[in-house]
């Protein structure tokens, strides 16, 4: 959801004369929405600027993202960044639905719906 939010904001800024770069890790969501310039770091969600504890990598990632301001000549420019996570296990695991967690997810859904309804009933939601 974070990636959709910044993509919508980036589009609004672009439409009003402010060039943008989105630096993120959910390629499908950003490209589905469509932005001007997207620096794609193929890491687990949460570390779009580089690995925790690796300030050198983070500086290089941000520098590469800044480069897009000058290099992109047309909208929907995606630049995949060259860094890789140390393994690929996270790709299958994130939000995985399996026989083992299906019942837990069902219960979680029931709880979420009850919480949302309680919020609506109490008026603790944005009204705009």
């Amino acid at each position, binding site marked *: 959801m974070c990636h959709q939010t*910044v993509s919508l904001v980036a589009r609004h800024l672009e439409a009003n004369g402010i060039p943008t770069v989105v630096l993120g890790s959910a390629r*499908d969501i950003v490209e589905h929405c469509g932005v001007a310039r997207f620096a794609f770091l193929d890491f687990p969600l949460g570390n779009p600027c580089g690995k925790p504890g690796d*300030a050198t990598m983070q500086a290089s990632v941000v520098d590469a993202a800044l480069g897009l301001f000058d290099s992109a000549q047309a909208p929907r420019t995606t630049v995949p960044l060259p860094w890789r996570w140390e393994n690929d296990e996270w790709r299958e695991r*994130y939000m995985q639905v399996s026989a083992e967690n299906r019942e837990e997810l069902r219960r979680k859904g029931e709880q979420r719906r009850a919480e949302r309804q309680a919020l609506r009933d109490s008026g603790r939601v*944005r009204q705009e």
Partner: protein
Amino acid sequence: MNGQPVPYMERSRLYYEAQGFTRAYTWAQFDDAPFSPMPKPLAEAKLVLVTTAALYDREASDPRYVASAPLNPPPERLYANDLSWDREATHMEDRGSYFPVAPLLAARADGRIGGLAARFHCVPTDYSKRRTREVDAPEILKRCREDAADIALLVPV
């Protein structure tokens, strides 16, 4: 899916379907994408930073709004406990992994960018695309203009 980008939209559809949500979320999709050419060279441009992290530790139930804070020095910490980052693969204890204040200060010092807005902006994530487009995005634009920012770097968690 060896080495392929994670299909997050499809993954979340199946995940919430398993939670019993019957109507699949419709992700924002547009045919066009607005594009502004650079008004000046990067080395002369003033940059503003936009994040989806928050200034305080929100409950998932808290109504959330656009917020801003000084970039230098930045707040001691930012918060993302309510956001959908990958808790099994990584952590967010290092602010630099999602909030690039140090590289941006270095880029300004090196002359890579012309300047930095004195503050950064937090945009709340919202399932409502309408609210993001009609309320939060215009508010971010207004604040970027108050900052006299030429360009924006947006970093989602």
